[in-house]
């Protein structure tokens, strides 16, 4: 069936795909192959996406709140999750900067301000399910309570690392999503349960 005549080619002109072939069979075969390839690509991407998402839970980057966020997203607001986490990362950056200023001079540390910043960060991280960031906040608060500047600085560094790490991870996840959509596929509506993926760890919040 694959005669020379059946060979067809594809060209994208002005955003539209044009298939060229000497006969109709060639076109349909080609199209089928394309579709199949596309489906395969989509399927592969979808599997990739799913696996990646699950791994983020397994590694403790995300918890059930992130699942809730994804559930809130709908056709009307397809970028909801991306927008929310973007707000979160901006907030992180702002808070970390101000806390850093407060901790700068050892002789004059405004622990109250730092504590307030940690509290806000904790609240923020709990809103998107940024589990690791939130956990650092817990230790951070303890250092504030005893006015341990060294401890605070260490926590500050850690929280900075964690939020940036999460930012990268989520960026990769969103990229996968984009690729799936571009490949004509649908983003898997898979909502991993943190509690199931990490049975060894007691969920902080609860279901």
């Amino acid at each position: 069936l694959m005669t020379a005549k059946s060979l067809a080619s594809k060209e994208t002109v002005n955003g539209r795909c044009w298939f060229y072939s000497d006969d109709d069979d060639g076109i349909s075969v080609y199209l089928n192959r394309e579709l199949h390839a596309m489906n395969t690509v989509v399927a592969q991407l979808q599997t990739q996406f799913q696996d990646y998402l699950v791994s983020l839970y397994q590694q403790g980057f995300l918890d059930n709140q992130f699942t809730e966020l994804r559930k809130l997203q709908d056709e009307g607001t397809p970028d909801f999750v991306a927008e929310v986490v973007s707000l979160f990362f901006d907030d992180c950056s702002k808070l970390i900067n101000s806390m850093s200023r407060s901790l700068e001079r050892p002789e004059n540390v405004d622990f109250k301000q730092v504590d307030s910043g940690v509290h806000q960060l904790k609240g923020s991280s709990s809103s998107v399910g940024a589990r690791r960031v939130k956990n650092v906040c817990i230790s951070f608060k303890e250092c504030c309570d005893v006015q341990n500047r060294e401890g605070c600085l260490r926590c500050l560094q850690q929280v900075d690392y964690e939020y940036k790490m999460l930012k990268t991870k989520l960026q990769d996840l969103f990229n996968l999503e984009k690729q799936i959509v571009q490949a004509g596929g649908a983003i898997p509506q898979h909502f991993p349960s943190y509690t199931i993926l990490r049975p060894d760890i007691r969920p902080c919040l609860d279901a």
Partner: protein
Amino acid sequence: MDKGFSPVGLRVLVVDDDPTWLKILEKMLKKCSYEVTTCGLAREALRLLRERKDGYDIVISDVNMPDMDGFKLLEHVGLELDLPVIMMSVDGETKRVMKGVQHGACDYLLKPIRMKELKIIWQHVLRKKLQEVRDIEGCYEGGADWFTRNDEAHLLGGGGEDVSFGRKRKEFDFEKKLLLQDESDPSSSSSKKARVVWSFELHQKFVNAVNQIGCDHKAGPKKILDLMNVPWLTRENVASHLQKYRLYLSRLEKGKELKCYSGGVKNMDLPPKGSEFSSVHQSPGKNSYAFSGGSSDPKQLASSSVSDPSSDVHMPPKAKKTRVEFDPPISSSCAFDSLLSWSDVPDPLESKPQILYGSSFLQQQPLPSQSPYVANSAPTLMEQEMKPSYETSVNADEFLMPQDKNSTVILQDLDLSAPSAISSINVTNDTESILRSLSWELPESHHSGFIDTDLDFSWLQNEHFLANTGVQNFQLQDYSCSPSLLSELPPHLWFGNEPDEYTLMVDHGLFIS
């Protein structure tokens, strides 16, 4: 009654300084089909609320706001707009939650908040609307709100003296907690900068103002404040006093049928003057007690209580201490029943003096702390109780304590040496409350004859609520106590405030432990 309430389109104002949360909450609330307005600052929220007084149904606010404490915002909204407010926080510490409740929050949610929690917030709005309707109906129908039985309806409706408390009142549960916590937690209410001592005179002004407003118009704190013309008093002070007064009156109604120990006990050591009491007895089925007193005694009591405003007035914080006899808590309603009876004036009371003795209290539970005016109030209440057919006019002064009304307490025939009479009396929780009322501190002259009891009238705080205005048309014996109000609040919690070292003067001899 509003039957057409629908959660769809509920107008919610969300206040949170965290932009991430604000966006998430907005999305969640929209998913609940609510109409959402977001706000990042407390002041901005207040501005929005004031601009459109009827523009929102409910407010949800975070506790930690940069420009204003979330609790402050809560107070403002509650006082000015009387909207239900839900607090949110990452912090779920009991103390904070309690603070929220104290400041009037109708709920306290922990972050992260779940959809199911937001899906039901409309219930708070509906609940409040229903209460409003009930309050209004109560005003016009002679207290339907507070009397759950028809036969009690006339009690407030008759004399035209009943007071309409118009405005909405908080959820009973939270009211309870408010009463409970209000005075006990020193760090609690930011609205109580300086504690107002509701002296007799002040309360008298209050009740007069309330009476003046009457039932036709809603007696709101603002109107009352204006009429009272007390420069240093704030609307908030009046509002909280009003709330307690209302509660007190409503409990009076519920507790009508309860046995009440009249404050007569306190007056045991008083020489009976024109005493009309003939015997100790309980009215069948009602166990109400009343005192009829000679004029001199009331005066004595009245004056003495008045003379010690500073010592008596201040409602001690909460030391729910009750002496031996009164260990079991007395149902709050009872206490108020006793209060009520005190408002009665002498003449009508002459007919049936009845006296309940403290033994009835033996089975009672510990009473909450009492105000110093228990002694004075108790007899009045007792009188009231005893005169079912008697319509007593409740006056401000009587609310606080029996003044120079003949009605005062005169534990006339209360023979200190007749414990037998006491022991024969049935003990019920109602009696407890009366007992509690008795525990109000009496003036020195009466001290000797009184049993020491720490009753918890904390809810009265510095106020001496000797039922007045609302009591007027009480047909005591016609009251059937509706248990609903009573059952909601355990007796020992009724008055809210923990009694402080309140020493009650009750003659131990009267009570058989």
